[in-house]
């Protein structure tokens, strides 16, 4: 499904070039992140885990990928 073309998106505040045609869950795989350990905010909307595979990443999208770290 993935083409050779790339698109520009913003991930965690940084510009990133990623393959075109990825779903959000495929993007997590591309970034070598475990989908069960990450929560995704896609263009300001929080994605439920079930929605990751159906959400497509398009040029110019903004993604926030967060997880739990040590804290008080």
């Amino acid at each position, binding site marked *: 499904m993935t083409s050779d073309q790339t698109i520009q998106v913003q*991930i*965690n*505040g*940084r510009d*990133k070039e990623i393959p075109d045609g990825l779903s959000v869950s495929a993007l997590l795989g591309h*970034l*070598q*992140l475990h989908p*069960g*350990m*990450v*929560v995704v*905010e896609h263009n300001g909307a*929080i*994605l*439920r*885990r079930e929605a990751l595979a159906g959400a497509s990443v398009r040029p110019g999208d903004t993604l*926030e*990928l*967060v*997880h*739990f*770290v*040590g*804290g*008080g």
Partner: protein
Amino acid sequence: MTEMMAGPRTGDEPLVIAGRALRSRLLVGTGKYRTNDEMVQAVEASGAEVVTVAVRRVDLDRTREEGVLFHLDPERYLLLPNTAGCYTAEDAVRYARLARAAGFTEWVKLEVIGDPETLLPDAEATLRAARELAADGFQVLAYTNDDLITALRLEDAGCAAVMPLASPIGSGLGLINPFNIRTIKSRLTVPVIVDAGVGTASDAALTMEQGVDGILMNTAIAEARDAVGMARAMGLATEAGRLAYLAGRMPRRERAVPSSPARGMLS
């Protein structure tokens, strides 16, 4: 496990927050540890069942730096996400919703800071966020000042627990205003958990002796020379302070009273 189901081993009632019975009255954080291994061992040694975690961006440059879920089993501990680092109600609500989307819990430790130097809470923003989150189905455990009026309003806002500070976050200054804490405890129906400021085991015992329902701490354990040893000390001190509160202390007297009989002395 049987012990957990049967309730506390000490004759105390379990601490019940949002319908969940907890054997330990100590809640601990997972920040500032030197290693993940030390953190895991300290959490275990503390006896805590509720363990706080923070929500942060994944570090894309070092994805091998694992999140806390790789080390703490959410089946074994009730992971309590916090909104630490948030300075507005809107940010805190956003962090809380991100945390809930992870799918482990509806609980959130709400923390809205009002000042970077003291890290004291913003009461107004905390209240606004608490109302919004409670209306959205969250079980809100709200970090707040040791102020009765704010505490009452947080309870009224639907918080599952109210968590006044002993002293500022990370200060280790101990329980600065026992009177305020007792006042809050005497007036609230929801559990009162003292959060932040405890420095060592005697602080934990003194705090529990005020009659509060529990303590949440992080730095006092993580920054101890032997974090695992301090975690155990804090667990014992929390329980000791609780038992002393339940047992009732003797009156203070400004004169000595002998413990041995005055009668029967040799002439």
